[in-house]
């Protein structure tokens, strides 16, 4: 188990480095000169070529790409994400303010996706072919087809406007106003969690059906074990392996989905920051968002790999 963990962590560091290379290159190699983006807010007509060159030198954009990369990497590893090109604020301050908001939404969506998706999937698998299974499977199939942002709009219209039950948009910090916070996050969390719940149901069901077909499950039944201990004690752990594998990707999907949902509900989180950065062509912000998104996903995948060890003894003893 020890070597397994160490190998995974080393792999993750390598991939993280590659992620930084991609983030760095993507913004620089794609069309659009960052210096012109920087100037776009000012008067382009008045500025001379010398001034542009001077600015490039000041921002370090005239040095070889590889030196720029390592300089940038050094800054980033110290938590310095640079300054916004638009308002010259330190990006890290923005991130510190916005990350907890997205974290709260994402974590809740992730938790409900586990708490609802897995049990419902198990029930559907155990009652295979019954009306209950058909109902739950249909709900799962439906859930992956509904665009989250559209569900958000629908809920705003039905729940907030027609029924007047919850606020339409915005965000309040939990520490300032706990009740207001809960009211504001209910709808966004539902929207963010819908697709992960639906995927969870579908995947748990098919994986459980696969496991329930195995010989050792038949043995467990013929030993005279109760349904509960066959399903939970023997089938569930093995049935969960593919579900856990996907959970890392689920988190990535939630982070990506927050871009849409935070826009729908006007929530000032990281997703909104990314969209604002893209619209303002502020590539430092975009870089920061990509970097944080990548780190979160890689961290989640590392946790997934480690939980295999707990689920599957074959990995634990390797």
């Amino acid at each position, binding site marked *: 188990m020890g070597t397994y963990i160490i190998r995974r962590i080393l792999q993750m560091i390598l991939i993280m480095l590659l992620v930084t290379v*991609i983030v760095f290159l993507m913004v620089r190699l794609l069309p659009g000169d960052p210096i012109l983006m920087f100037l776009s807010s000012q008067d382009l007509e008045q500025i001379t070529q010398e001034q542009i060159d001077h600015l490039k030198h000041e921002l370090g954009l005239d040095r070889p790409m590889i030196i720029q990369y390592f300089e940038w990497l050094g800054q980033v590893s110290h938590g310095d994400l640079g300054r916004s090109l638009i308002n010259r604020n330190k990006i890290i301050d923005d991130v510190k303010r916005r990350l907890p908001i997205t974290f709260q939404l994402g974590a809740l969506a992730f938790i409900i996706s586990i708490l609802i998706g897995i049990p419902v999937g198990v029930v559907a698998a155990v009652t295979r072919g019954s009306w209950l299974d058909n109902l739950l499977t249909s709900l799962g199939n439906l859930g992956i087809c509904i665009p989250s*942002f559209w569900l958000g709009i629908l809920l705003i219209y039905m729940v907030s406007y027609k029924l007047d039950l919850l606020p339409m948009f915005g965000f309040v910090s939990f520490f300032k106003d706990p009740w207001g916070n809960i009211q504001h996050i209910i709808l966004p969390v539902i929207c963010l969690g819908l697709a992960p719940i639906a995927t969870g149901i579908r995947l748990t069901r098919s994986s459980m059906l696969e496991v329930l077909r195995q010989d050792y499950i038949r043995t467990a039944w013929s030993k005279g074990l109760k349904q509960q201990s066959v399903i939970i004690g023997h089938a569930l752990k093995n049935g969960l392996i593919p579900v856990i594998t996907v959970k890392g990707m689920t988190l990535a999907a939630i*982070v990506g989905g927050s871009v849409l949902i935070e826009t729908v509900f006007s929530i000032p989180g990281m997703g909104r920051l990314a*969209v604002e950065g893209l619209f303002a062509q502020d590539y430092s912000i975009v870089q920061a968002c990509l970097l944080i998104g*990548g780190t979160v996903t890689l961290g989640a995948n590392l946790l997934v790999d480690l939980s295999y060890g707990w689920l599957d003894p074959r990995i634990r003893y390797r």
Partner: protein
Amino acid sequence: MSKKANKNVDFTEAPPRINETRRFLRVFIGRPVVIIGAVIMFVFFICALIPGLLAPYDPIKQDLKSVLAPPGPGHVLGTDALGRDMFSRVIYGARTALIIATSAIAFSAVVGTVLGLAAGYFGGWTYTIIMRFIDALMAFPGMLLMLTIAALLGGGIKMVIIALGVGGISGYTRVMCGQVMSIRENDYILAERSLGASSRRIMFNHLFPNAFPPMIVMMTLAIGMTIMAEAGLSYLGIGVKEPTIAWGSLVNDGNNYLLSFPLLSLAPGAAIALAVFGFNMVGDGLRDALDPRLRGTL
């Protein structure tokens, strides 16, 4: 055929041949939900290929005399802020969705196939470099990655296709690579190599045709997801631009009038959900029907 009957089979005779096509069709159309999906898919294709057949109006013709008309006999879904018939716009949106989804999937499948073939066939450093790069690409939340690429490239239909295409590369590369690695150990590949076949010949004439079938199901299942991702980009205003009609941008446009004219954003969103549902159900049905573990069963 039941297990009981199997026991009485006379082993001196060959077992009856099973018609694979019939088995495929039976599994495929065995579930009503797959049929519903296929019908939706059919309607979607009609909307995309011959929208004029169903759309009562020109989708971009403005009629400032009937701005924001409520749904009624003239305009089934009402009109938008510029007096354009919403129903016609939703129908024409299918064309954009189809063009983008198929092109983006073709893009990612082609790039993914080439990368996966190379990684799986050559192994060693080629494998390490390609697959670690794919790992890194997968580390980004898909939506964020596609959004950034589309925005940096400047939006528009071609750029959206590239952005969605890049987002899909990793899945195809991994599947292709895995397939190739298992197939290349077969004797017929060894035989081909000992006959002096070039790497290119082995890769494209032998490995590729054998490794490709699982990708077909993957591509079918990807259509729904790609339509959804494209809608997300257009909703944020980073995807396709006017006058191209995309469902996502229709939802976004209508959002401004949500409280008084909810159908303007809810109707195109429902179209997205329906189309995705249709493709997903057909994809599921196809996957089950082509499942190799079911081969040989009646």
